[in-house]
């Protein structure tokens, strides 16, 4: 018997690879873009000198009373409806009690067992697979102040952010039948991006992760595939970009898997993402069971939402990103990748939509916008809403390409000019003399000149080096300042060299 082929003992089960599957929950906080704070008239803004947007209410001074900002409730209800949540007919605020210096009242006005919205979902597409990620609740609360750590054992407190309307959106694990949960770092990032798109379309928040108006705290666990019970979860903080959300979740999944494979156990804790080192580290906080002693906020009366009000809001919702993407594909016949790029920003989607419906060639419009337009936007750092280019410009340019006034090469120059100056295409062509030369005589002269100038290449071409045709076309184009009709150039070259 050959021992190399037949091991004496069967391999013990524990050595075979257990497959793990991730379970990821997302808690997202979004500051609403209202003019004033949630419960007082202080202005909502970013930055500014410390403690310049504070009053007795958002400082929690004795005797002050909060009053609910109606628009914040409307914004939040809109968001909840857009996520397909049910709006709770009667909703109340609770006090969440805890001591921390960023919270001047020692309680945060939040929602507990009557959140404004429940049971919704966010649709995501990763690797061609579409999933409905279940959302458990959407609730309203107030943001806290900011602690700025200074030299020594002290912190400075700035309450400008205290009381800014804050919406919390939490996923549901396990999801109800027909819905999914987030199971990879890719899906976590996609979930957040989709959520951001929706909220930007609704205009309820500017969702800037780097400024903290959108914040995300994923909780992560892994379990052996097929096991129903969740593994021990950790929560990650300090994720300030979509990239760090992806990297942080990915890191944490790998860390937990390695730990379990080496026979260790995952400790329930909060871990801080360190962007420069590309890793999470324990925040070494005692994970005492948090006891917030929630009770109904006596200073605020309950809210009741009539179905008429809800239906009115529903019908006021704009077309949402995924629906717009699907419409662009079916109505205009453009590729899905292009549609995704276009709907990522509402301004871009509107520019495309308004242009495409006025031309016979929506695919060309999509190409120009996803190509040249975005290139110029990125190169110049212009906001899409600030550009001088309108759908009229693009339509005008496509028209003069189609009727042969300019060729595609010249069109690039024209496009950049329109982008920079806001002039119309025909005006630029006129002013700069960019009209396509279709006159055979003029092109023929250029072809003859090129042939005369390049005897070596002509010889090589005739000897069978056919790829040189591109070289000749290029030369002729240069002779005509790019204005020659490429069809005529090709035809003449073929005749003269053939």
């Amino acid at each position: 018997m050959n021992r190399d082929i037949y091991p004496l003992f069967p391999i013990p089960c524990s050595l075979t690879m257990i497959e793990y599957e991730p379970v990821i929950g997302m808690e997202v906080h979004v500051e609403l873009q209202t003019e004033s704070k949630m419960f007082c008239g202080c202005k909502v803004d970013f930055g500014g000198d410390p403690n310049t947007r504070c009053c007795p209410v958002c400082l929690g001074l004795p005797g002050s009373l909060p009053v609910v900002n109606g628009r914040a409730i409307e914004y939040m209800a809109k968001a909840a409806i857009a996520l397909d949540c049910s709006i709770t007919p009667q909703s109340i605020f609770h006090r969440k009690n805890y001591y921390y210096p960023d919270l001047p009242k020692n309680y945060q006005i939040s929602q507990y067992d009557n959140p404004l919205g429940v049971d919704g979902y966010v649709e995501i597409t990763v690797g061609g697979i579409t999933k409905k990620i279940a959302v458990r609740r959407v609730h309203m609360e107030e943001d806290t102040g900011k602690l700025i750590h200074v030299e020594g054992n002290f912190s400075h407190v700035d309450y400008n952010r205290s009381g800014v309307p804050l919406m919390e959106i939490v996923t549901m694990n396990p999801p109800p039948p027909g819905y999914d949960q987030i199971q990879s770092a890719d899906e976590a990032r996609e979930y957040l991006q989709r959520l951001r798109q929706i909220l930007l379309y609704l205009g309820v928040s500017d969702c800037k992760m780097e400024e903290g108006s959108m914040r995300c705290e994923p909780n992560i666990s892994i379990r052996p595939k097929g096991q129903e019970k969740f593994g021990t979860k950790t929560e990650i903080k300090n994720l300030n970009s979509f990239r760090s959300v992806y990297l942080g979740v990915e890191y944490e999944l790998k860390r937990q898997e390695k730990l379990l494979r080496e026979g260790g156990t995952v400790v329930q804790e909060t871990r801080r993402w360190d962007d420069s080192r590309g890793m999470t580290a324990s925040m070494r906080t005692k994970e005492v069971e948090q006891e917030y002693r929630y009770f109904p906020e006596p200073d605020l009366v309950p809210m009741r939402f009539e179905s008429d009000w809800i239906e009115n809001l529903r019908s006021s919702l704009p077309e949402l990103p995924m629906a717009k993407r699907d419409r662009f594909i079916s109505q205009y016949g453009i590729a899905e990748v292009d549609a995704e790029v276009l709907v990522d920003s509402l301004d871009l989607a509107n520019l495309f939509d308004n242009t495409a419906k006025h031309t016979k060639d929506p695919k060309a419009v999509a190409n120009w916008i996803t190509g040249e337009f975005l290139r110029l936007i990125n190169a110049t750092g212009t906001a899409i809403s600030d550009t001088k280019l309108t759908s009229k410009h693009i339509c005008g340019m496509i028209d003069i390409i189609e009727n042969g006034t300019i060729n595609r090469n010249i069109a690039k120059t024209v496009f950049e000019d329109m982008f920079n100056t806001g002039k119309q295409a025909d005006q630029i062509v006129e002013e700069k003399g960019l009209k396509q030369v279709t006159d055979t005589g003029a092109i023929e002269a250029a072809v003859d000149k090129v042939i005369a100038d390049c005897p070596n290449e002509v010889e090589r071409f005739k000897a069978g080096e056919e790829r040189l045709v591109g070289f000749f076309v290029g030369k002729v184009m240069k002779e005509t300042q790019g204005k020659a009709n490429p069809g005529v150039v090709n035809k003449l070259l073929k005749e003269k060299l053939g």
Partner: protein
Amino acid sequence: MRLTRQDIEGVAHLSRLELSEEEMEKLTGHINRLLENFEELQELDTDDIEPTSHVIPVYNVFREDKSRPSLPPEEVVANGPQVDGACFVVPRVVET
């Protein structure tokens, strides 16, 4: 229901109250007498009464989303036990 000495210690900690031995004894008694009073209320038959979170029948009190001037920063920090410029100063607390 009776609250034990341990319950009181827990609540005191959550409220960041430092209580002496004497106060602890006294408050344990107080709070339990208070709870006994509530137990009396519990005897009422409330089966046909809809639960409420608030005692007045008022709903939907909303404010228009208009900003108005805030306090000057020096007034904001006027009551602060320790202040640096326009900021409150607090002992550094590990984030939880």
